């Protein structure tokens, strides 16, 4: 494909959008590390241009008929050719805008949040790196290129989670995130190789096209789909590998916002959406995905119901929302999953940024302490938090409502009603835990313990009246995101047309009892809010969740279903004591022993040979004669 690139505005925009953050990363790391303001400016300018280009691309290709692909040959082997370039199709364009937009808002927000941090330049450099990796990931035309940027996303999230590296827990969390996602990535890589061996290339369009069926048997398809899904499980923190995400809260809050909404964990679901036709070729794999999505959704919801740390509650809710997306995609609701990914990016970023504002002002993560600090006096973040939580619970006018209804519709289309029931239960729990936080925060403890909390409240009044000077900078992204959250839902049908207009002609409309599903879902989320109101909101409420009344259950949820303990035990028993011991023995006995044996053999051999060379010239003479005789025998006869 030979197109003179300066003439093609689309290509130019794609290059600009994906290259500039990297340029700013390099510039900051090389030149402007000592000048924080300049670094931040560079990074924000870069991401602004990226956002502009992304919007331009989206608008220009709103009526995209078929995917546009620009590739240049990057690596060629005898039979395999791997291109490098851009692939523009509806999902990637939408995701590009989401990523660029969230990156932009978070970077602006970070101007306030990270103000005065001595690692300010470094922070912006990593943010740029993060944005670059994720933007490129969205536009990758081959799954190998996607994998490369996938790893870069993992790297930059590691750097950002462990940003405050003096804190031991932060470095540990970064390491944990990196290692656990790596565990999934190994499976992903094996899946890549399977695809390469059987399909012959990494091209996403070919994987999604009819070639995949032609070249791969059903068993191989299922195998490779499951392996690739392993990467998604790691990245999107799904069931077996979910525990890294709550720990990743050790990073700065804007990082969490970015990580949870648009970049790191969204990459997994995005990959699913990107390879959706490929995955849907294997019904077995899709059922497994559905189960994994459901399990992680339910588990994470239960964890979120008991945690007191505001960021961790949102972290669990991210896992559970990602579970929802995976359920939707696995149920065949391509649009539902992609749409929920988009809306979730908006309201989850909003949730984190609001919480970040509270944390920044009051210096605590605990929701009860935040309540005692009277943080509801800050009108903007409180209202925004309310909007975001309502969107998370799926209340009507907000974006979350529309996407959640789409997911429920997709689940209702399945023959097995278990999935729908699980989804509805998830909706209920989501509303409950979201509004538990809201009610706890906005209604501080009644003055039953007034004498204790008196100094607190006076101090917090002081905090509330003197907002930090960077408050305004941090408030604006909140307002923009809140607007997006409110309005995005009404763009459902144009987006649907944009995303799946050509993919599926028309979805079968549900009829009969299934038409009630949206009302049921709505009723359940209202019931969740109501339960939260009864337990935490109303005057004189006990402020104790129903889960906390059952100690074993509470312990189970608070300990995250002992998944971490299981891993610890597993690592300790099986890996440390089992496999490592085996390897240790192998190293000691077999490898060391082998080498020692060789050395000893050489020495002993030398001794034996040295016996011949004992200074007895007559032996040598004898040998010479013997050799001569033998040689003459050989030559003459």
């Amino acid at each position: 494909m030979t197109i003179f690139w300066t003439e093609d505005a689309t290509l130019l925009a794609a290059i600009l959008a994906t290259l500039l953050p990297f340029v700013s990363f390099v510039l900051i790391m090389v030149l402007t590390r000592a000048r924080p303001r300049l670094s931040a400016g560079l990074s924000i300018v870069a991401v602004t241009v990226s956002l502009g280009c992304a919007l331009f691309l989206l608008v220009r290709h709103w009526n995209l008929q078929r995917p546009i692909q620009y590739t240049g040959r990057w690596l060629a082997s005898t039979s395999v050719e791997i291109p490098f370039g851009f692939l523009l199709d509806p999902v990637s364009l939408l995701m590009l805008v989401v990523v660029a937009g969230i990156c932009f808002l978070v970077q602006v927000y970070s101007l306030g949040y990270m103000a005065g941090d001595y690692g300010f330049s470094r922070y912006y450099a990593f943010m740029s790196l993060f944005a670059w990796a994720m933007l490129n990931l969205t536009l990758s035309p081959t799954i190998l290129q996607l994998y490369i940027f996938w790893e870069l996303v993992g790297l930059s999230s590691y750097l950002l989670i462990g940003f405050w590296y003096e804190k031991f827990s932060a470095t540990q969390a970064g390491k944990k995130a990196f290692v656990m996602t790596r565990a999934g990535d190994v499976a992903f890589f094996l899946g890549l190789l399977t695809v390469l061996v059987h399909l012959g290339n990494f091209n996403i369009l070919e994987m999604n096209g009819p070639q995949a069926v032609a070249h791969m048997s059903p068993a191989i398809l299922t195998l490779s789909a499951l392996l690739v899904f392993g990467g998604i499980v790691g990245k999107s923190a799904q069931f077996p590998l979910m525990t890294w995400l709550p720990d990743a809260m050790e990073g700065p809050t804007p990082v969490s916002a970015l990580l949870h909404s648009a970049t790191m964990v969204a990459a997994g679901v995005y990959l699913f959406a990107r390879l959706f036709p490929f995955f849907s070729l294997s019904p077995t794999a899709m059922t497994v995905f559905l189960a994994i999505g459901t399990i992680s959704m339910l588990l994470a919801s239960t964890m979120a119901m008991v945690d007191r740390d505001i960021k961790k509650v949102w972290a669990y809710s991210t896992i559970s929302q990602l579970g929802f997306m995976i359920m939707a995609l696995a149920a065949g609701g391509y649009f539902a999953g992609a749409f929920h990914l988009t809306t979730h990016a908006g309201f989850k970023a909003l949730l984190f940024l609001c919480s970040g504002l509270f944390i920044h002002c009051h210096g605590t993560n605990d929701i009860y302490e935040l309540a005692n600090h009277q943080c509801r006096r800050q009108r903007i973040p409180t209202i925004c938090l309310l909007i975001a939580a309502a969107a998370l619970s799926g209340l009507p006018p907000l974006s979350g409502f529309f996407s959640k209804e789409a997911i429920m519709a997709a689940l209702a289309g399945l023959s097995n009603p278990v999935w729908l029931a699980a989804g509805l239960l998830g909706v209920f729990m989501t509303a409950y835990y979201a509004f538990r936080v809201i009610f706890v925060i906005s209604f501080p403890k009644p003055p039953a313990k007034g004498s204790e909390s008196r100094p607190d409240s006076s101090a917090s009044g002081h905090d509330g009246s003197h907002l930090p000077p960077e408050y305004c900078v941090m408030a604006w992204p909140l307002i923009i995101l809140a607007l997006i959250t409110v309005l995005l839902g009404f763009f459902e049908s144009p987006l649907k047309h944009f995303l799946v207009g050509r993919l599926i002609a028309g979805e079968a409309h549900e009829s009969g009892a299934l038409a009630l599903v949206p009302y049921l879902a709505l009723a359940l989320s209202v019931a969740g809010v109501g339960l939260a109101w009864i337990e935490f909101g109303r005057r004189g409420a006990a402020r104790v969740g129903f889960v906390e009344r059952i100690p074993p259950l509470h312990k189970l949820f608070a300990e995250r279903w002992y998944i971490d303990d299981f891993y610890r035990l597993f690592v300790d028993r099986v890996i440390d004591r089992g496999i490592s011991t085996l390897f240790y023995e192998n190293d000691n006995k077999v490898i060391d022993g082998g080498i020692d044996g060789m050395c000893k053999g050489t020495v002993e051999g030398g001794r034996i040979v040295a016996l011949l060379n004992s200074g007895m010239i007559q032996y040598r003479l004898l040998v010479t004669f013997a050799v001569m005789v033998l040689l003459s025998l050989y030559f003459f006869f």
Partner: protein
Amino acid sequence: MIVPFSHVLMLAGILFLLGMFCAVARRNLIMIVLGVEIMLNAASIAFVGASVRWQSLEGQSFVLFILAVAATEVSVGLAIIVYAFRRTGSFDPGAYNILR
């Protein structure tokens, strides 16, 4: 030629084997040098026999060279043996294992 050539060769071979046995088996340096001399002389007999057999002088000239080499070899060898005897006090080749 009165003596058949095969008899000459047989004599030379027997002498050579005797010399070889002497050089390999005796535990005395002087006897080893003696064995080497005997082997040289066996070769010389074979040469002389051959020169008579084919009526050519090259064999005899070789014998002259062999005699010269044997004489020098004996002189140098005996000198080394005398020196070695002074060092170790023995004629046994097994005693010369300092370099071992």
